[in-house]
């Protein structure tokens, strides 16, 4: 059977948008394979999200519910996902913290190959090829997976979120297999969630990122600027490491990868690791006092200047423009 299984990411009783990117991949893969795609949802009670998942045009929505699946833990989730994926050609989820943590574990259980952070789906006949970034995005490898099930995580910014089709896919309940010994040695303690009223970094149309140069004025300067643009706020590693902002704002090779329509790099020099996380943005604007900073090599528009002067001016003038 050449069908595709999408692993849904559900958090706080909601379907995360990452799921919709994986569905986009699945639609393409199913079309290339001449098969269909299904969606798998795990949790202690996923009834609240079934309607949304069933509307995404899947052949089936597979559901595994158990008290042990209330909080995500790879040790409990991997056996369920592996059992469900066994009859599919491809298992896909988005390369979020969830997908990156879980999929390799599932792949090991299935004795399957795993392609991480895939940005493009290609094919040769009915055999799939996966393009994925390596060396901080300075090279791309095109690979094939030689195992009965092919396990793939996809980069969210490379696959636009799938729209609902208005379908109402049938729901099929799965038995939850017993977890292994490893599961008895791990316990979910708590999630210290960062409160964020802004758009999700990985989904925003506009991202404004700040670097070390902003110092303690990181939020003071970026908040009003982001407000006027309705933008998400990102950061360089240096800004996060110095404690000027929350670590979950980090954009880069090992942080979040974004590709918004408009990206502002403010006081960011443009280390290779940062570029890896934002180089695919449509329009890049760099503001930096060092005219030789590497960020200017990828920026469409570069403004050499003192950000402590430029940013307030830009914010004020943007607001005037929006209000006009």
């Amino acid at each position: 059977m050449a069908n595709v299984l999408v692993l849904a990411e559900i958090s706080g009783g909601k379907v995360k948008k990452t799921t919709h990117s994986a569905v986009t991949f699945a639609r393409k893969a199913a079309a290339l394979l001449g098969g269909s795609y299904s969606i798998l949802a795990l949790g202690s009670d996923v009834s609240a999200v079934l309607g949304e998942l069933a509307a995404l045009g899947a052949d089936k929505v597979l559901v595994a519910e158990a008290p042990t699946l209330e909080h995500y833990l790879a040790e409990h989730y991997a056996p369920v996902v592996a059992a469900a994926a066994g009859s599919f050609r491809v298992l896909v989820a988005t390369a979020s913290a969830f997908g990156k943590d879980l999929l390799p574990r599932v792949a090991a259980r299935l004795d399957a190959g795993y392609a991480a952070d895939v940005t493009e789906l290609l094919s040769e006949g009915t055999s799939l090829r996966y393009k994925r970034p390596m060396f901080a995005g300075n090279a791309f490898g095109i690979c094939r997976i030689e195992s009965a099930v092919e396990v793939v995580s996809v980069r969210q910014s490379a696959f636009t979120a799938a729209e609902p089709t208005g379908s109402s896919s049938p729901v099929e309940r799965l038995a939850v297999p017993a977890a292994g010994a490893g599961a008895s040695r791990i316990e979910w303690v708590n999630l210290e969630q960062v409160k964020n009223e802004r758009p999700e970094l990985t989904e925003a149309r506009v991202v404004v990122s700040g670097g070390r140069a902003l110092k303690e004025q990181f939020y003071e300067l970026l908040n009003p600027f982001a407000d006027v643009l309705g933008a998400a706020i990102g950061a360089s590693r240096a800004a996060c490491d110095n404690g000027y902002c929350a670590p979950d704002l980090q954009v880069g090779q090992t942080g979040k990868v974004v590709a918004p329509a408009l990206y502002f790099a403010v006081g960011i020099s443009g280390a290779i690791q940062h570029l890896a996380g934002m180089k695919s943005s449509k329009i890049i604007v760099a503001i930096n006092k060092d005219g030789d900073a590497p960020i200017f090599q990828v920026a469409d528009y570069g403004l050499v200047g003192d950000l402590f002067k430029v940013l307030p001016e830009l914010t004020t003038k943007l607001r005037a423009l929006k209000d006009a």
Partner: protein
Amino acid sequence: MKVLVALKRVADPDNANKVKIPADGSKIDTTGLEWKPNPFDEYALETALRLTENGKTPKVRAGEVVVVTFGPPETETTLRSALATGADRAIRVNATDEQLDGMTVALGLKKLVETEQPDLVLVGKQAVDGDTNQVAQLLAELLDWPQATFAATIREEAGGLVVGREVDDGVLSVRLKFPAVVSVDLRIVAPRSVFSLHTDPAHKYNEGVRFAPLPAIMQARKKPLETKQLADVAPGARAKVTYVSFEAPPKRKAGVKIADVDALLDKLKNEAKAL
């Protein structure tokens, strides 16, 4: 506590933009780039050292740190420098770079774990060449051990660890009982990220990883370094992911420098139509 740390060397990550792809797309050519330790693996080693000491007396190990690498003889440099930094013993699994992928390494580590029986396996969350982020998770499943990936904080308690994992929307804490596999993220080397049972909770480490003093570099030459063969630790391992070809990333066209805020707004509004 006994900790096994897996280390990899990578082509200089700060010059990763200098890798070349030949016209036929047959490989990623890293010629001219120096070998460096994978940064995340250096953090894993630092974490192992912090977990096996009292932070006030970092020269005394309370436990054992065994470092492992897979690769040709020249990768022993990576192991010797880990020994100089404070690891007790080293194992090199002899292999060519071409023979190795994540699954092969995980299978080999599983075999070593069965012999060494550590309480904890520590690795970096990803090697910054392949950028796959998988060995910890693969190994944990092969061993049926619990895993905590992307660790930003670790606090030892009796028989296990509380690990703060960096996830997309914050920090997720999990409690693990030994034996377990942990992969570390960037901020694990912050001054107050890792506490062993021996370290005063008020202790502050220096930011980053420690460096080996010169006498330790000399002494490291006498520390045990054992060699094993890949065929013995991962018999029959075969890569399930095969690279067909490689490509350079699309080049962004060089942009323009803008004189002032008014000109920038004009460009964004009228040329890029991005506002």
